[in-house]
């Protein structure tokens, strides 16, 4: 499978026709996805089953949810390194609430509702804090979100004293385990979030403002856009997405380990956004692209694993694909 994407970069092809390169840079992710599916249909046993689809979708959906928020942040020219730590915080907080460790709540439904709301909102508030640092103090996004990247996981570990919290609470775990109509619940949540964000980015004033800020901040400011508010809002949304993803992870695992929830998520999400075709410098973004980017990375990994390639080697291939995808997109721009 590795040969397929690599052949795009074949020198002869590049020399013969520059248009092909432009075409690939525009539709490369879709083509790669189609080729991956075709390859799997031909060579991977039991690929065309609901189970395979569900396995891949459930594995990818937390990355996609985080990548949606990340796409909006990157669209403004920023970046959010804190998402993994925010996942850990919301993942640590929720069980503490519904298991009654903070406040004894008699009704389990009430407890679960409070747990979900509070932990996602806390993650959202911490996201707003990121945005505040970026917008108010003009701190570079990498540094501003680095603060919570470092401190956030520590906060989650301090809250739980580093202990594993295990639970068996179906009233909560539907978010990661229920299957209405045979579709995993988190896949439905993912689809709703992707659809809402894609619509918001394309069709609403807020979406256009995000792209304007990323495209040219000074011009946006002069055009009367409330740049600071837009920036604070996207980091807040990124925090909300991370909080929700944290809940899904712990629901699937029936446990919450503050040391592990969301570890490395920031880089997976950024990779999905980059492969999906969103400019890392801001100003151009596609939510559907991020979805396709995440799916492509996931499917590459699945394809390699299903065909007996060790996980470590799959990492190397993944790295190559990220670099290649971003390089191809640059050819289009250049």
């Amino acid at each position, binding site marked *: 499978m590795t040969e397929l994407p690599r052949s795009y970069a074949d020198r002869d092809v590049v020399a013969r026709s520059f248009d092909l390169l432009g075409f690939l840079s525009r539709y490369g992710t879709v083509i790669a996805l189609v080729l991956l599916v075709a390859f799997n249909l031909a060579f991977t046993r039991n690929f065309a089953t609901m189970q395979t689809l569900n396995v891949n979708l459930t594995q990818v959906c937390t990355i996609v949810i985080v990548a949606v928020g990340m796409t909006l942040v990157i669209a403004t020219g920023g*970046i959010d390194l804190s998402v993994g730590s925010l996942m850990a915080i919301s993942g640590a907080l929720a069980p503490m609430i519904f298991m009654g460790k903070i406040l004894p709540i008699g009704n389990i439904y009430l407890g679960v509702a409070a747990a979900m709301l509070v932990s996602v909102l806390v993650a959202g508030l911490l996201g707003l804090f990121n945005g505040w640092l970026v917008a108010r103090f003009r701190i570079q996004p*990498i540094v501003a979100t680095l603060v919570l990247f470092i401190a956030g996981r520590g906060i989650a570990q301090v809250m739980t*004293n580093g202990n594993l919290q295990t639970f068996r609470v179906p009233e909560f775990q539907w978010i990661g385990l229920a299957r209405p109509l045979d579709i995993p619940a988190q896949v439905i949540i993912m689809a709703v979030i992707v659809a809402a964000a894609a619509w918001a980015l394309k069709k609403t004033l807020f979406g256009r403002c995000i792209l304007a800020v990323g495209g040219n901040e000074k011009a946006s400011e002069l055009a009367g856009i409330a740049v600071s508010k837009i920036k604070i809002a996207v980091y807040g949304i990124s925090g909300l997405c991370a909080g929700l993803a944290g809940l899904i992870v712990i629901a699937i695992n029936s446990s919450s380990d503050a040391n592990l929830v969301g570890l490395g998520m920031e880089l997976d999400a950024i990779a999905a956004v980059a492969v999906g075709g969103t400019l890392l410098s801001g100003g151009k973004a596609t939510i559907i692209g991020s979805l396709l980017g995440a799916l492509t990375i996931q499917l590459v990994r699945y394809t390699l694993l299903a065909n007996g390639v*060790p996980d470590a*080697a799959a990492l190397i291939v993944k*790295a190559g694909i990220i*670099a290649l995808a971003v390089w191809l997109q640059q050819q289009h721009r250049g």
Partner: protein
Amino acid sequence: MNRVRLVRIIGTYGVLIALAALVLFGFLRYDRFLSFYNVMTLLRYNSMFALVALGMCFVIMTGGIDLSVGSVAALGSVASALASPYGIVPGLAAGIGAGLVAGLINAILVTRANLMPFIATLATMQAASGSALLLAGNQTVSVSYESGFTAIGQGNLWTFPIPAAIAVVAYLLGSLVLNYTGTGRAVLAVGGGEDASRLMGLRTDRVKFLVYVASGGLAGLAGVILASQFGAGQPIEGVGWELFAIAAVVVGGTLLTGGSGSVVTTLAGVLLLGILFNVLNFENGMGWISLSAYWQSVIRGLFLLVVVLLQARLTQRRLGAL
């Protein structure tokens, strides 16, 4: 220029004053804080981070970033552990060599393929991590204790820890290169304005190429020390090192936008973050409070926040005055 100079002064003196204050606090409050054993242990342990932060400092001064240093260090530790039965030199060569190769890939991706440093080094990070796991067969690789390889991490030069001596030499060289060679001045020029530097005739790509290769080599060397100090090549170690190194560089007053920075204050940044943890341990030992090790990241994060806010305020006020 004024802004850069001001930030540099604040960076230099701010971090040094903070470091001195923290050391004084520890000295006055804890009996054995400045004891020989504590100081040497602190230096020995933090030498790996110091080496990684040195490479990061140079990369950041050119306006780039290197996210791969942690997994490159892990790769270096595995490679050197595998080569350790053949002696000290092969062990060193294998670790540094692996780091140089990773740095070379970063350099090529950034200067030839024109990828953004963030993405290029993110990809290398994953590839290095995968390579480390493959090389190590998904487990830690114990080093040879017969060949003398462990001296690099555990040995002493008279009474001074060898890894700390390596770090000191590296920082001296780094400081000399930055302040007294054309390449060093070019590093700052490229970070200050790449287009202008190119138009002035500086070979900007060559400078960028060099810093990424150097950062890879230093990360590999940190990996050698890791393997030697803890007796094993550890393919999954190094997670988060890159961000610790960035934090140390930022605390040291180097601007992430490039164009200014100092090697000495980066070392002070590393020591400051290391001593914070040390002070926490001593404070726990006093028995007044009991903060778990998990507090160290919270405190480091808060510390970074304070530094960053101070930098932001000072640079903004200055800009307002201009």
